[in-house]
């Protein structure tokens, strides 16, 4: 058993450098611990993507962005994801903030749960969510970023939420549309 341990990877690390052994053991320990308590603290990542059930729905939705009147933003390749993330994730987040009367959802979580348990951290809380001035800068930034992506000046933006149903033949059909945001 001792021989097996000595020849194992960690055994060889221990023999080569005790500090390295401590460092690597702690890294793996905290990675496992983060997953066990289900709380990520970079670089101890949790790997829980797509681990929950996804009940099949009758309708699916997505955000549709129109700019300069009737032009449609249509990103067709998955390798465009780094840009697509910035075109849709902050947009969805902004709409969520706007719909919550300009209160960031994380601020809500901090103030209604976390700070009640950890009042000593009240002083740092305002650094952890965007304030109203930052939130109000979003439409201007979005226009700038979209202009860069579509390679032309963007004067106005309309964001719709499309509700879609799939037919048995696999075709999709828009069944309802909500108008979420207009940036003049």
């Amino acid at each position: 058993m001792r021989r097996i341990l000595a020849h194992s990877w960690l055994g060889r690390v221990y023999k080569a450098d005790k500090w390295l052994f401590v460092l690597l053991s702690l890294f793996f320990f905290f990675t496992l611990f983060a997953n066990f308590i289900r709380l990520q603290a970079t670089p101890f990542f949790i790997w829980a993507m797509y681990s929950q059930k996804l009940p099949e729905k009758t309708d699916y939705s997505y955000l549709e962005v129109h700019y300069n009147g009737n032009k449609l933003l249509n990103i067709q390749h998955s390798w465009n994801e780094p840009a697509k993330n910035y075109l849709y994730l902050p947009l969805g987040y902004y709409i969520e903030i706007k719909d919550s009367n300009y209160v960031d959802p994380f601020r809500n979580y901090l103030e209604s749960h976390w700070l009640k348990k950890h009042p000593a951290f009240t002083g740092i809380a305002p650094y952890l969510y965007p304030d109203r001035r930052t939130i109000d800068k979003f439409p201007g930034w979005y226009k700038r970023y979209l202009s860069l992506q579509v390679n032309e000046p963007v004067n106005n933006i309309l964001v719709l939420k499309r509700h879609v149903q799939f037919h048995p033949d696999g075709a999709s059909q828009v069944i309802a549309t909500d108008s979420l945001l207009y940036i003049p």
Partner: protein
Amino acid sequence: MNDRQRIILTRIVTGSVLLLLSIRFLEHATLSGLSSPTIFSVEPDITYWLYRMSPLPSLLVENPAGAILFDILLFLTGILSFLFPLRRFYIISFSILLMLYALSYNLYATHHLGQLYGYIIVLLPFWVGNNYKFGLVWEGMRYFTCLVYSLAFWWKTVWGDSFYDWQHGVSSFKSNLVDYITLNPDTIMTAIYRWLLRHDWILNAGDKGIMLLEGLMVIGFFTKKYDRLLIWLPVIIHVSTYFFSDVFFIELLPIDLSLLSLTQLDRIGRLFSQGEMTPMRR
């Protein structure tokens, strides 16, 4: 691991990271291309809390001049690491900048995206100077890679339940591709997707197959005998999710390079040999 193997490995890893970063640059998704984003989300991750409270985000992301300088340094240190693989100063600088890039991108994306986690980790072993110890730490990266996929499987089967949800495949397919199918009804890919929706058992079986492939990575903890096969599993997983989940987790693949054996490194070295890959001085 000897100097020559280390040179080849450094070049393969930094080269693949640089290639992926170049795609990001062309996509206006490196810091200079983000046009000084505004809103952010730290989420319950203490590292992001500390990062947000530091002056770095406003200096590197919100300030256009800072963002341009950052990108220049990011690519410059990356290229220098590739050209001078044994000069650790370059790769240490590159790894710090890469880490800052990943944190910044995720912070202002308002969502912490898993495909960037590899960038934060993958270059850290190269900080180690001694080749023998470096080899040991890089072997640790191999165990980390096996752990990542094994944990993903564990989450889906033990802590989560998606493995037991037969419809999970078709549900995630529809959720992720609803915009593409609706906005591009006449493309070849949509025709394929519609055919798959008519035969949705393929999507559901494929979904389970991908989960099982993740689980198979646990083999790597017990033997290196199958590394030659295991190295392909993350490739199959991420290429499949590229087409059927519309996600670009291919960016996680640099960590998968840790499953390359020393023999394979020598073979790759010989492919590029005849003076082209001469060792650079420390």
